[in-house]
Structures are given as C-alpha cells and as structure tokens.
C-alpha cells in the first residue's frame, strides 16, 4: 500500500501476514502438484493440506474431518444455507434469518424463497441485537435451518450465538453461523458452542484471498447437499482441484491467530477507545450498533447533514468504508443500518472504521481528527437546512 494511505478497512479485507506470504511463495515452488495425484509430488501437496486442516481445526477446536474447503465465505454461506435447507427439505421448509445478515446470506434465502421455502426475517433491536426470546418465538415445528451471523460486518455487533444455538439444539434445528468477521478474531470453541455449520474466509484474518471453509458438525442430520458438482474431492461435498498453497496459507493464518487472539483483542479495544474519544466530539455523531455488544475492531458512525460519499472522499488518504464494503460502489443506503432504524439520510452518512494488527494509535487519532475536519468542511458547503 502507498505509504501515505492510512488503511482502516480491515473488515473489508486484511493484508496477508508476511509469514503467510512467505509460505505461499514456498508452496509455489514445492507444493504445486495436484493433491489428488497419487505420486510423490501429489502426496506433498496432500500433506500440506492435512497440516493446514490440523491448524484450522485447532483454532476452532474441531475434528479436521469436519472442514470443507471452499473459495470463501460467500460459497460457504451458499453451501451451508442452500445445501442444508435442501438436505432437510423433506422434514420441513421453514427457515429463519435476519435482514441484517451479509448479502451472501440474505440473497441465498431470497433464492430459496423463490424455490418454495418460507423464510422468517427477524428484525433486531435498534442496537442491532436479536433477543433470544423473540427468536425462540419465531420457531415452528417445520423450522429446519436458522442462519445468524456472529460479528456483523457493518456495525461489529455480536449476536448471542450460545443462546441462539442452544435453542436450535433443543429443537434439532440446523444452525448456521456466518463467522466471516469472527474467526481468528474472537475465541471460538465449537466443542462448547452449539453450532452446526460455520462459514469462514481467509482474507478477513490475514490469510490468503480466494480460500475459505465450511465447518459441518459431525452429528446426525447435519449434512448439506452439494451446490457444485464434479470430481470426487472432499467426499463429493465440494469438487475441484484443491489449491494446496492457499489452504496451507489459511492454516498458517489460523495458527498465528490462535497464538495472539487475546493480545489482538486488547489492541483493538484500545484503538476503538481512542478513535471514539476523538469522534465523539463531533456534533450530531451517532454510533451504529452497540459499543458494549460490539467486536472492538469495528466502529461505525453516522452523522447529521453530511453525504457519506463526499465524506469518504474528503477523508482521503484514510481508507474506510461507507455501508458495506461489498456494495460500496452502489449508492443505496445500507440495508443493515436501515434495519437498525436509521433514516436513509443517517444511513448513507455512515462511515465504518475497522482496524487490525498493524494499526497504530496515531493512525486512529489522525483519523478522528480528519473526520471532524471533513464533517466541518462539508457542512460549510451545504445549505443551512437539509433535514
């Protein structure tokens, strides 16, 4: 990245850890063979994949056999939700999710609605949180699959996954968690957590891009139908030549995360505190989500009387997101923030700051200062009354 850019968009994507980058480079020379090939070179690739499965399963406390490699969280979400719903369709066709999920979740549910499934969309409170009691009330005898994300990508809000999962377990409902923003960042122990399907992606925790995984619990009734068809790789759940290099990189990223997850969390908490201390001084600023129930690596704020796109440009060379990174180029106000009760105007002014391991305290202090200046300048350009 150019030195004068200040990157505060770690929730959109993280840089590759230098050790992971080095491993990838080494794999390009020594582990390039197809891991399905039954010769010495293929076995080396296979061994790398097995090692990586061990590293990732240690991070999540699962059996390596429960992990299916995918191209990223989008594919994992599709496989879990479409594959899980179809696998259980003979038992019932009612599904439950929230409108504040990532598009990789909501768009799969929209597709399933067109195919005859019935979806209940549960709204969060204004702080973004789902009340487990409301959740329990929405379940029916024919509910077969629930998908609730761990850390929200726009606000950082963390749902009560243990409580929601316990309710699903009681009723034998498949429970999928999109943990793209959580894995490698907050401790996740899947022996403790009642989760059946969990999506993750390498590029959100300093691993490679283009590689992800789906955890599929090894318990009765917990299966997915494939959504891609081809060779016999990965027990026919997901075909295609496995990219041994990317998988090795994801494994190493998982191992690095295991070793520093608490220190990382402390660092992020300090940064968010410093950032919010500076931004809180700007007139008319509101936190989107909930500071207490929020992952500390994300701070999303809205502000009166400022256009979000202009704010983003005015903030350069600081790199932050408006709305979701995945639709930053669209002009629509974020549907996630609308679901939290924000007006269109407030939603479109939202700026998401997200930080990571390399972020320094002076970066967020600078960002807070620039935020105040940018808001002031844009307000000075605007006609007096806009609301």
């Amino acid at each position: 990245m150019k030195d004068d850019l200040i990157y505060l968009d770690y929730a959109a994507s993280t840089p590759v850890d230098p050790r992971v980058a080095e491993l990838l480079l080494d794999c390009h020379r020594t582990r390039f063979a197809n891991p399905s090939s039954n010769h010495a070179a293929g076995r080396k690739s296979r061994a790398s994949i097995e090692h990586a499965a061990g590293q990732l399963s240690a991070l999540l406390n699962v059996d390596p056999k429960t992990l299916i490699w995918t191209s990223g969280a989008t594919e994992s979400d599709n496989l879990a939700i479409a594959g899980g719903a179809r696998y259980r369709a003979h038992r019932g066709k009612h599904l439950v999710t929230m409108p504040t999920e990532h598009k990789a979740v909501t768009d799969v549910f929209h597709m399933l609605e067109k195919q005859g499934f019935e979806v209940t969309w549960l709204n969060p409170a204004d702080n973004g949180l789902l009340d487990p009691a409301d959740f329990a009330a929405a379940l029916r005898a024919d509910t077969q699959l629930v998908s609730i994300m761990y850390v929200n990508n726009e606000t950082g809000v963390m749902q009560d996954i243990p409580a929601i999962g316990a309710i699903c377990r009681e009723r034998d409902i498949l429970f999928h968690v999109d943990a793209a923003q959580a894995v490698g960042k907050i401790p996740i122990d899947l022996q403790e957590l009642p989760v059946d399907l969990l999506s993750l992606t390498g590029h959100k925790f300093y691993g490679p891009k283009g590689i992800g995984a789906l955890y599929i619990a090894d318990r009765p009734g917990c299966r997915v139908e494939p959504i891609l068809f081809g060779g016999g790789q990965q027990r026919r759940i997901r075909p295609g030549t496995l990219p041994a290099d990317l998988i090795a990189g994801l494994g190493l990223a998982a191992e690095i995360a295991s070793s520093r997850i608490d220190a990382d969390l402390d660092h992020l908490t300090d940064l968010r505190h410093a950032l919010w201390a500076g931004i809180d001084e700007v007139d008319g600023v509101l936190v989107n989500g909930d500071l207490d129930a929020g992952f500390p690596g994300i701070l999303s704020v809205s502000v009166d009387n400022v256009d979000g796109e202009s704010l983003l440009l005015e903030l350069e060379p600081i790199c932050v997101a408006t709305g979701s990174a995945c639709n930053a180029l669209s002009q629509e106000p974020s549907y996630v923030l609308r679901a939290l009760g924000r007006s269109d105007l407030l939603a479109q002014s939202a700026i998401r700051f997200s930080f990571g391991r390399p972020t320094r305290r002076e970066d967020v202090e600078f960002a807070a200062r620039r935020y105040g200046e940018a808001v002031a300048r844009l307000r000075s350009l605007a006609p007096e009354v806009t609301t």
Partner: protein
Amino acid sequence: MSSDPYSALVRDYFAHTAHAGDLEDAVVAEIAERGVHLRLAATVDNGTIQALRFRAWGCPHVIAACEYFCAEHEGRPVGALGELHASNIMRNLSVPVEKTGRILVLEDVVRLLERAIRDESAPH
C-alpha cells in the same frame, strides 16, 4: 468500469470550492430532491453574471459540478445559462452515468436561476 470513479477534474473542483458560499443582494434558486440539495446565488449587472456562489449537499460529483459551473459562468452573459446541459457537464468532468439524475438537479436549478434572473430584470 474505470477503477477511479472520480476524474482528476472532479477531484480538483471538489477539493477547491472557491465558489462555495452566499452572496448579498443576489438572485437565488434552490432545489432539494434525489438525495441532493442545491442552492445557487447570482449577482447580475447589465445582462452579465457578476458573481456566482453555490451551496451543495450531495456526492462529490454534484459538489464538483457546482464549483465547475460557477467558475465557468462568472463574467458571462445571462443567456449562457440556457446553454448549460447536464450532458455537457458529465462529459467535461467524466461523471459516471449512474450520477445522471443528480446532475440533472443542477441543470434544473440553473434553469430556475435563469428564470429568476429574467423575472428580476423584467420591467416591473
């Protein structure tokens, strides 16, 4: 899709808004719609635009377009306002087509301003 949605000109006009502000004793036109709120103020002497100022709430393209418009039209005859079309601005500043609606708001408020100037200067 070009990788940068903001042309060098848009970046420049957005960053240097010399014509942002108000004018005393000016003719004023104002519109708020489609996520944009624009106000133009003009002083006119003898059919010539003396000064132009804008206030804008909107995306960078809208703000840049306002600054561009003001800078281009100061010192020109009022009739030149009639020649302003959103399509020219979009071409000259390389505004992406998705922003057409917003730039049309500028065209509208310029029309309004022109009419207001003619109304003012018409014999009472």
